């Protein structure tokens, strides 16, 4: 199904909306196995929720809904509550992440108890592992050393019996003077990280997504017959939301689950596959969308016709045509703006355009492929410093700034809780939070309340670090849980020589990220699944950007650019009314010609 003819007039819009709604409605009752290609703004999550909410109450067999983010789960929860159907959130239904599904049904049932080791724990990221177990020291020449956190590494499980492979992603590769490290040294620390991961999995029984997938692959092979009896009896179907984010291993596992007799419904947008680790092949998920019955949802309730057309030029997958704009502002007259990138003048230009369109700052995104291309210092919003005092200050800073980056807030929250526990209980650094809570007899909600109180009561970070630390020590000592022993001492102090600096400087976050107003800046990956009235994408003046724009303008696939194209597609499809691209001036003419060739209204503005 491709885009419907663009008939002018309200009657035409109504007809297109009816058609889109009919397609959505069909999805509520269609029988799995099924794959659904849903364009941006297609109301995909809502459709899944509708499908789920159509389940009669009191069923003994449930539905499993797995997603990569918690968005689907949150939406299901909201709708089910509104319908008075909280049973839809509970047994026999399971609403979880794909990780969580693999863990619960392919791994957890087969784990062997070993009384000489801790019980197994599934953790979402290495950030949830005990801090002291995450620390990796790389010894350099002359007795120097560089300190790394296991959570900084990316791990990729290649499949089969192979162990997950570590790499250090760009930002962490260059942070904190690490750019002085040689490739060989980085290679060495990656191997150390792999060894550490192995130890944490086998000796400490901490399993993250990679280990879960590795074991799931193994257990699916070993316990195939049992799973074939139990899984289809447990669930009527498995729904996989955001299926485009599946890795090759995920797709293998999902295909095997389907072969066990559990019908699988996958829904996603293969053009938004942006977690392929820069591989140039077709995204893994395309296998999911090419087998069995496929339904396409091409009605876009989010973006204007212009933006839909712009997005269509970025598609790298099999031809899908242009999506049909269904929003009230479907015929919005805003053109695509191509702004020359020059000494941050594009920021002002974008602000002016959005102001003129009446779009408030809170409804604007400024995005880039890589955080280094963003204005201001945003590099550390997801990376706490390694020192305890610095980490505490960093967490307080991030949480007090109320950054809209949920992930950064999550990390800051975890860091704050970990630092509090470590301050109150010296031994807390070697165990996960849950184990610490058990061990020290603290209720998790109590810790949440203490953390909130600490956040409110800690002094302003503008004072000298030494004074701040003194006051913080007093506060934490006063607030300590009754079981905290012994009275903490000396754990929280300014690093030597930095006592007179502002406490806030220890967070190394710089001024509040991005623009002076509420405009949200971030990487494209960080706004996945969200939307804004106005979006500007920043391209740095480098080879990668040039290759990408060239690839886009010429339409001929080029090595190293396919995934970047999809990332860019994700960026522009966040926009509801206004899309702008800020790029090196030399690249503008080709792109303008390309877009105009597709009948897209394009405007450029000269440097201010």
């Amino acid at each position, binding site marked *: 199904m491709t885009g419907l003819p663009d008939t002018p007039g309200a009657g035409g819009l109504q007809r297109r909306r009816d058609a889109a709604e009919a397609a959505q409605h069909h999805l509520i009752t269609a029988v799995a196995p099924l794959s659904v290609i849903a364009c941006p703004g297609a109301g995909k999550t809502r459709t899944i929720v509708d499908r789920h909410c159509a389940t009669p109450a009191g069923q003994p067999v449930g539905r499993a809904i797995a997603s990569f983010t918690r968005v689907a789960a949150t939406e299901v929860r909201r709708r089910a509550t509104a319908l008075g159907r909280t049973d839809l959130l509970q*047994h*026999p239904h399971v609403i979880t992440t794909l990780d969580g599904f693999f863990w619960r049904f392919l791994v957890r049932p*087969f784990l062997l108890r070993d009384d000489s080791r801790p019980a197994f724990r599934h953790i979402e990221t290495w950030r949830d592992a005990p801090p002291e177990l995450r620390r990796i020291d790389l010894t350099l020449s002359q007795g120097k050393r560089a300190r790394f956190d296991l959570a900084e590494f990316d791990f990729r499980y290649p499949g089969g019996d192979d162990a997950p492979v570590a790499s250090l992603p760009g930002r962490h590769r260059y942070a904190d003077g690490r750019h002085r490290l040689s490739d060989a040294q980085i290679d060495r620390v990656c191997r150390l990280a792999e060894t550490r991961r192995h130890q944490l999995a086998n000796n400490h029984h901490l399993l993250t997504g990679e280990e879960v997938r590795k074991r799931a692959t193994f257990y699916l092979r070993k316990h195939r017959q049992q799973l074939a009896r*139990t899984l289809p009896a447990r669930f009527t179907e498995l729904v996989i939301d955001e299926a485009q984010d599946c890795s090759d291993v995920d797709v293998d596992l999902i295909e095997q689950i389907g072969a066990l007799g559990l019908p699988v419904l996958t829904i996603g947008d293969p053009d938004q596959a942006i977690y392929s680790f820069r591989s140039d092949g077709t995204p893994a998920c395309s296998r999911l969308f090419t087998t069995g019955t496929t339904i396409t949802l091409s009605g876009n309730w989010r973006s204007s016709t212009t933006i839909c057309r712009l997005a269509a030029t970025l598609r790298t997958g099999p031809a899908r045509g242009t999506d049909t704009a269904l929003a009230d502002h479907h015929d919005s007259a805003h053109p695509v703006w191509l702004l020359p990138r020059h000494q941050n003048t594009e920021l002002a230009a974008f602000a002016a355009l959005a102001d003129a369109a009446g779009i408030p700052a809170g409804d604007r995104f400024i995005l880039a492929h890589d955080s280094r291309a963003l204005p201001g210092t945003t590099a550390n919003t997801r990376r706490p410093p390694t020192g305890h005092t610095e980490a505490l200050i960093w967490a307080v800073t991030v949480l007090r700034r109320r950054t809209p980056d949920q992930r950064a807030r999550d990390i800051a929250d975890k860091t704050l809780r970990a630092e509090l526990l470590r301050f109150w209980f010296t031994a807390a650094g070697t165990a996960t939070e849950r184990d610490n809570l058990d061990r020290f007899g603290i209720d998790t909600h109590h810790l949440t309340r203490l953390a909130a109180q600490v956040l409110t009561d800690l002094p302003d970070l503008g004072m000298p670090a030494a004074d701040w630390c003194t006051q913080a020590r007093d506060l934490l000592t006063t607030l300590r849980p009754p079981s905290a022993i012994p009275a903490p001492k000396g754990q929280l102090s300014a690093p030597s020589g930095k006592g007179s600096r502002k406490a806030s400087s220890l967070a190394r976050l710089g001024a509040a990220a991005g623009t002076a107003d509420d405009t949200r800046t971030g990487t494209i990956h960080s706004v996945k699944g969200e939307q804004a009235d106005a979006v500007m994408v920043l391209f740095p003046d480098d080879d990668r950007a040039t290759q990408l724009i060239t690839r886009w303008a010429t339409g001929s696939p080029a090595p190293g650019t396919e995934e970047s194209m999809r990332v860019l597609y994700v960026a522009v499809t966040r926009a509801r009314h206004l899309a702008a691209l800020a790029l090196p001036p030399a690249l503008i003419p080709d792109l303008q010609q390309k877009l105009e060739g597709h009948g897209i209204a394009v405007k450029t503005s000269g440097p201010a």
Partner: protein
Amino acid sequence: MPVFLAELRLSGFRAFAEARIPLRRGVTVLLGENSAGKSGVVDAARLVTDPLDGRRTLWADPDDVSRTGARSGFTIEMTLRGSPAELAAYSDATPVSRAGSVDETTAVYTLTYQPPAGQESRGRTSWTAGSGAVDDDPDPGARGRIRHVYLPPLRDAVRELGPAGSARIRAILQQLLDNEMFVDDAGLRHDTDRFLAEVGAQLDAIAAHPVLQRAAATVNEPLARLTSGAHEHATDLGFGNADLSSLVRGLWMRMADAGVQPRQLTESGMGYANLAYIATVLTHLHAAAQADLTLLLVEEPEAHLHPQLQAVLLDFLADTAAKSQRASTAGTWLGRIQVVVTTHAPLLAAHTDVDDIVVLRRQPIPAPEPAADTTPAGPQAPLAARFTAAAIGVAGLGLTGADQARINRYLDATRSSLLFGSRTILVEGIAEALLLPALARTLLKDDPRAWTRFVGSTIVAIDGVDFGPYLRLLLTDTDAGRIGQRVAVLTDTDPGKRKDPIAALNRLLTNLNAAAVARVFAAPSTLEPELLEAGNDAFWPAWQVQRPQAGSKLRKRIDAAATADERARIIVAAMKKTRLRKGDFAQDFLDQSTISGRPLRVPPYIADAITWLVAPSS
């Protein structure tokens, strides 16, 4: 294979230091003396499952932690068994063996309770699903599919059936009103609306009765004065809004089909009141259709229940459970029903299949070995329990079908308390059974504690000499010990037989590895000659009563005989020839000694048996 609760494993819970309670798919009868842990098992099942009606009345409590001193909390582990399809919903709880193989016909959940420490006022409970490799239960909802209905010991059914217990009657009413098929004699359908309207109209008429009107006015006068400063309140003595629960609260219900009129419950016998109560609870079981497994936990139905009704009830429960297991399960809840009955009455045990019996008993805890690094006994030490409860399932003893059949028949006929006694003496016939108490009283007259232990012993007369099935039942060893703690066998040598039955019995005891807890005491001949040999003057008068003709001639022959053997042979021959009834003779013998004041002398082998039986526990 229908799902059922196959086992409860209790650690540090109530009377149980460490115990496995095997349960049966249909009906399990938990048999035991008081404080043997029957209620503990039932309460454990109540803690690990939800009540069918969702109203939990039992919560883990610090007092539930057993006082063996060693534990800070308790754990209850429940093991479900069933086919993989029936257990699919419990996949989180599938255990894994050491070898890594998955037992998909089993699901294990463990409840752990830690009593409040320090200043906490609440204890902490946590759940583990599966074998414990991961110590959580990711899907507590699955456990919600296993429910229970609890029937406490029925001591006050009238109150339960009265206004306070209206919930159950309301459930029956609601079921009738919801039933499309239910019509009255005139063929009219009564749904809830109609019922409420009709009954409500009549209640209004009652409320309009002049006496009630006057009463309301009497109440209202001071009420108006008291509340005039604020909102003015008024009351009437009517029935308010006629909803189902208030109607039930206000009405005495008829239950004609049960033959019971609850309005007269206070006048009827307690037994029928209890049965009526049980009937209402069983009606409640229709809701079992909304669960996979419903445990019906019935405590001591013998309390105030007529013996025949106990048997009828047990039959009914067994039938209900069996039906639920045959029911088709396509696409719905499994709806299985499993029954657990506790009793300390021999009757229920006798009425059930012996395989369905689980014997609970207390056994002493061996004194703890003082560890090298032992700390001085804390304040809890004096409280330390000296006993722990253990459970032995008869089905787990591995008895043969022939043994089971014999024991079943025996129990059915005699209602014997065979399975109760911690001290048991097996005898051949009724004669020994009749004589033993009298002989023991004589023997133990200067040792009241030994006499008490004798009174607490069970005398089992098997009316034969095939002790094998009973010994195997009582003495087969299990992880939890044996049902019989001290078993004496009193038998006759019956000289002249080709086979040596005493040696065979001793071999059996050796094979059961029970030589320390069981012993055979054999008369050199048989009972009657031994009574005479012991010097009982009552022998001849008793013989005279039984056989007036032959007495004096026989006595002369006996007096002339040279040895005990010879005397015995003469008496046995005479008994055979005259067809002497051993039971009747024993009664006459006791009459002649106890009533007529002739001293009772205990034959040595019986004295040995009694003395050994009543020896203090080691």
